[in-house]
């Protein structure tokens, strides 16, 4: 018996006015695997992630996430996905606990408190669980975004620049979340500029350039020189 891939992207185009942010990306990601999304600034990684998270509708192309069509069933996509956006991603005058409570309630999670508390502790945010996030440092905000993405054990975990400005302990905790997700059979897509961490976390790698996919390979094959050659 064959399983359908958790994420299927075919000829994805995203246009904002005159700007084509994504110009024909193809991507397939399997359940139980972690795939790194690499590329220079403006390559289309974050926009592709936003489409997969149901935040931005595709202008053209086919996008299926955990069996839900992103163009017609954004709500289904949102239920299946846990997303850590590349920037911010937190309501400035709410506390971490209030973020978790809202996310859990909207996903009909009856017993979420223990998991929420555990994740906050793992990311060393337990002491600030009831403090307004407006005063958080960048690294703390990133860590909380990963916690929010992982809370409901989503079928598809999307992490956009989760290591940006995060201390080594936070990086370890994030790698642990990725490993846990893979172990329970979730599909992980991780976008980052840090190749070494991407290789540590992921088995597959996809390189985007100018809104297009230019390479897809085993992460181990993506040496520093090969990566640079793909970026130029």
């Amino acid at each position: 018996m064959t399983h359908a891939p958790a994420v299927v992207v075919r000829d994805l185009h995203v246009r904002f006015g005159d700007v084509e942010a994504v110009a024909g990306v193809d991507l397939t990601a399997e359940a139980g695997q972690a795939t790194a999304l690499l590329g220079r600034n403006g390559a289309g990684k974050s926009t592709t992630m936003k489409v997969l998270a149901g935040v931005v509708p595709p202008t053209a192309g086919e996008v299926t996430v955990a069996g839900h069509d992103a163009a017609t069933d954004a709500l289904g996509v949102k239920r299946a996905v846990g997303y850590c956006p590349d920037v911010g991603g937190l309501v400035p005058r709410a506390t971490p606990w209030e973020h978790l409570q809202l996310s859990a309630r909207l996903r009909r999670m009856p017993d979420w408190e223990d998991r929420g508390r555990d994740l906050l502790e793992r990311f060393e945010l337990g002491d600030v669980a009831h403090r307004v996030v407006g005063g958080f440092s960048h690294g703390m905000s990133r860590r909380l975004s990963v916690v929010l993405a992982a809370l409901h054990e989503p079928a598809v975990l999307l992490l956009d620049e989760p290591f940006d400005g995060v201390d080594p302990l936070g990086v370890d905790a994030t790698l642990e979340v990725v490993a846990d997700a893979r172990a329970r059979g979730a599909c992980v897509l991780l976008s980052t500029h840090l190749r070494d961490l991407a290789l540590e976390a992921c088995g597959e790698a996809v390189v985007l350039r100018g809104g297009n996919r230019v390479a897809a390979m085993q992460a181990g094959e993506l040496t520093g020189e090969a990566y640079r050659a793909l970026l130029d």
Partner: protein
Amino acid sequence: MRSSIDGWLDAARDTGHLVAFRARTVRRRRASAFGVAVVLALTAAFAIAPSGFDVRSVGAPAVEQALTSVQGNLGAAFAGFLLLAVSSAMGSGGGRELLSRSEAAVHPVGPVTEHLGALLLAPVNLAWLVQLWGLLAVTALVAPAGGLLGAQVVVLAWVLAATALGQAVGWAVEGVRRSPHGVVVVRVVGGAVLAALAGLHLAGVLGPLVRSLPTTWLAETAQTPRWPLAVVVLLVLAAAAVVVGARPAAWALGLPPREELRVQSGVHEARHAPEPRWTSPERALLRRLDRDSVWRSVGMRRGLLVLGLGPGLVALVAGLEWGSVMVLPGLTASGAALLFGVNAWCLDGRGMVWRETLPVAAGDVFDVRALVVAECMALVSGVTVVLALLRNGLPPLVVGVAVLSCWLVVVVQVLAIVMTWSVRSPYAVDLSSPRATPAPHAAMAGYAGRLSLVTTLTALLFTGLAVVPWAWVPAVAALPFLAWSGRRLVRARRCWLAADERARVVLTVAAV
């Protein structure tokens, strides 16, 4: 060695650079130019048009009496403008900022530049504009033939001087607020001042006291051939206030913003998820999050307090009749909408992207946000109506129906307008500072002018309807207004429900 004049010239130059930078970022230039033209045209109309009415020729004793009362209270109105300038500057943490704190952090922007910027932005305020128009209109009404120009020049000079004085006081209060225990000091002193005013009013001495202020001399002199003397005095006063105001500005801006920092690191213990009787738990939770976002913001909390109490107290102290009160709910509701409602999605800031990943129907998100905006508007305008009720007692039936109809109409009207703007023209703003505005200043000026015009015209209509002998007339007249605004609100909601439109709003507000 550099003189202080060089410092001021540098600050003026820097202010010019900031204004030019701001002007270059205006998106809809034609609409902005049109908005400015409308505001200037309205100002000219208020300054000139009332002089064309010969009120005394009407011959009615009531009108005659009202005119005498207005003339006698012009000095008090001048004092009221100063009070407004002070409270506006205090409410906005010293004054509005040309560049937001995070944007300005990397630039060498000095306190004198901040001070000049705040002075330039003082007119971008609904209450400031309305008070200016009111002063110009009343002066035009009571100025003697041939004395209109001089009287209006005095009004403009007073507005300049009062704005500069208010700004200086505003910075000083902000300095105190930023000192240790300063928040408590400001609250206690503010409460004591309010209590003293209430006491003076109850003792019947507030009116005579206000009328004995130098502003009465100013109002009288403005209508005589000695008006140039008043203008010179006021311009000297304005220049002195601008220069002196730089001192408290430098002091205040050199201190950490304690109240904001306290709020930003505020602790709020976990609460149980709401279990509402009338709505779904999801909507109740969203509503709680949105309400918290409003009331945990220093600027919005302070703004709602000032808007709720200020106009109502004016109605109470100045003894405004129901006819004059009618205009206040629209203006206070507009003021509340200008705190964040004109860009309602900015409440989530960058968290907007995360909010959009939550599995909740887009319609619910729109409905809850609109409800929270409406709550804020209804609250502040409701306080005004209640305070007017305390002053005037229960109105006759037709007046009561007119007031309630007018209140409902203006709240729905403003809600429909601002939710449309929020979807059509979102902006990325950081509202953590009370000096921040929810949209660029040019847009705010346009918003303020438009809302005040619409709500004032609506209020004037209902003021007219309050004198008809049939109580059902104002209620029936409200229906087309409600239908039109309701249609507009539905249209804005439909626009929000379109995935690509919503994505545009989300990405703009979150600045990603």
